[in-house]
């Protein structure tokens, strides 16, 4: 018996090592194969991704609730601590806003007057859907979030997502009950924008950092940190005039946009449907599917 064990150890063990190495090599090759298939952007890959997301959406929906609760609780505690200071700030801000409001009312009346003089065609009504963020890829190379509703409530690829004061991104993939939103900070995100005061055009390009870069800005553009940036509507994916952020200068001296939206506090997003059909072929999500520069 002992002799037999020794025999086994002598002959089978090396075979097992060989088998293990072969399996490893085979699986690594298979992984490379998958990468090539993924790179080819086939419909099957996108459909499988949507199917898996749809399948997991209800589970993620439930799992994300306690996480959101903890986040809210933490936020409330900080708010309680800062309440006095916040109150003073709000009072000051309120005064300022009151003044703005008066001015706004005057401008609005004037605007309506001028529009009626020009026979201006009003833009189509916007329909909106509010969705809850249930997953956040959160990795080092991808800036997307998943929301808990999809085509069943009218979402479709290419719609615009906003939250609070500003642009969040656009719907990159829509399943039946889940959708993936490509954030404007993602590497693949390109948003045509305008510098609000000077009306200079630029493209806001995400690079996975918190502040997207401003590229293709005219050399003679007048631009200063603090200028407001809004979508320009060129290209027909994003409607014009959605606030995006403010111009800031990064440490390395490059011009960047500090988004109005705080992506760490993203709990709900509003998906706006302007009925735009301008996008012919949208690049799908994913860090690999980049863009030639």
């Amino acid at each position, binding site marked *: 018996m002992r002799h037999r*064990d020794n025999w086994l*150890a002598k002959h*089978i*063990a090396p075979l097992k090592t060989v088998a*293990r190495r072969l*399996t*490893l090599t085979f*699986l*690594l090759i*298979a*992984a*490379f*194969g*998958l*990468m*090539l*298939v*993924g*790179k080819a952007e086939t419909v099957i890959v996108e459909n499988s*991704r949507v*199917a*898996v*997301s749809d399948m*997991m959406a209800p589970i993620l929906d439930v*799992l*994300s609730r306690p*996480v959101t609760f903890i*986040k809210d609780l*933490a936020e409330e505690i900080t708010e309680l601590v800062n309440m006095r200071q916040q109150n003073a700030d709000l009072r000051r801000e309120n005064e300022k806003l009151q003044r703005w409001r008066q001015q706004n009312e005057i401008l609005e009346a004037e605007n309506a007057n001028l529009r009626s003089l020009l026979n201006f065609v009003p833009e189509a009504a916007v329909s909106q859907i509010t969705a809850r*963020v*249930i*997953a*956040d*890829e*959160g*990795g*080092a*190379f991808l800036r997307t*979030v998943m929301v808990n509703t999809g085509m069943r409530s009218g979402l479709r690829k290419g719609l615009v997502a906003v939250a609070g004061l500003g642009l969040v991104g656009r719907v*990159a*993939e829509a399943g039946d009950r889940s959708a*993936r939103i490509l954030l404007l900070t993602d*590497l693949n995100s390109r948003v045509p924008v305008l510098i609000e005061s000077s009306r200079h055009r630029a493209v806001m390009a995400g*690079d*996975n*950092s*918190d502040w997207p870069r401003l590229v293709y800005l005219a050399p003679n553009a007048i631009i200063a940190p603090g200028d407001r940036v809004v979508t320009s509507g060129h290209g027909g994916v994003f409607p014009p005039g959605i606030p995006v952020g403010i111009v800031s200068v990064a440490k390395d001296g490059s011009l960047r946009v500090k988004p109005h939206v*705080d*992506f*760490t*506090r*993203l*709990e709900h997003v509003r998906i706006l449907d302007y009925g735009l059909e301008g996008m012919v072929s949208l690049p799908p999500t*994913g*860090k*690999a*599917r*980049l863009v*030639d*520069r």
Partner: protein
Amino acid sequence: MNDFIARLEILKRIDVWARSLIPFGIVLSSVLISILPWRFPDISLVGPSWVLIAVYYWSAQRPDLLPISLIFLLGLFQDFLTGEPLGINVFLLVSLRGLLGAQRRFVIGQTFFVEWGVFAAVAITVTLLEWLCVSIMAKNFLLISPALLQYIITVIIYPAIAWLFALCLRALPPERVWI
């Protein structure tokens, strides 16, 4: 009486079978946990790589219960769920297992610091590999700092997670040694 013993035997087998699914269950949960909306305001945009910790720990401790083919499937699931380029997590997790394969005997039965050190070494390799793959796919060198930050957080949090996993390790059926 015989019938009773037979039934007991079946229950025992189900019990062993269920307990041997623990490592798989943990890795699967870690995939889900890592994509929950964790980003805490003002703290960090990246969280630790839970999947890396789970796959490393169970590959080191009980590779028999987390075969490489299962790791392949878990990576594929992660790719589909996160919307990352297809194959990237498959490649990284299988490589992690491959990298560990050679070092495993140094990890087993050693002090915790050795286990932690090997994890740090394997994890930095996987992190750099990920950065390289993604950069090649994007045809552009991407910002590496978020990946390094994620790596540091992952290594720092490893002891706490490993301690939790060690509690589960005790509940597992003994490893079957063939030779």
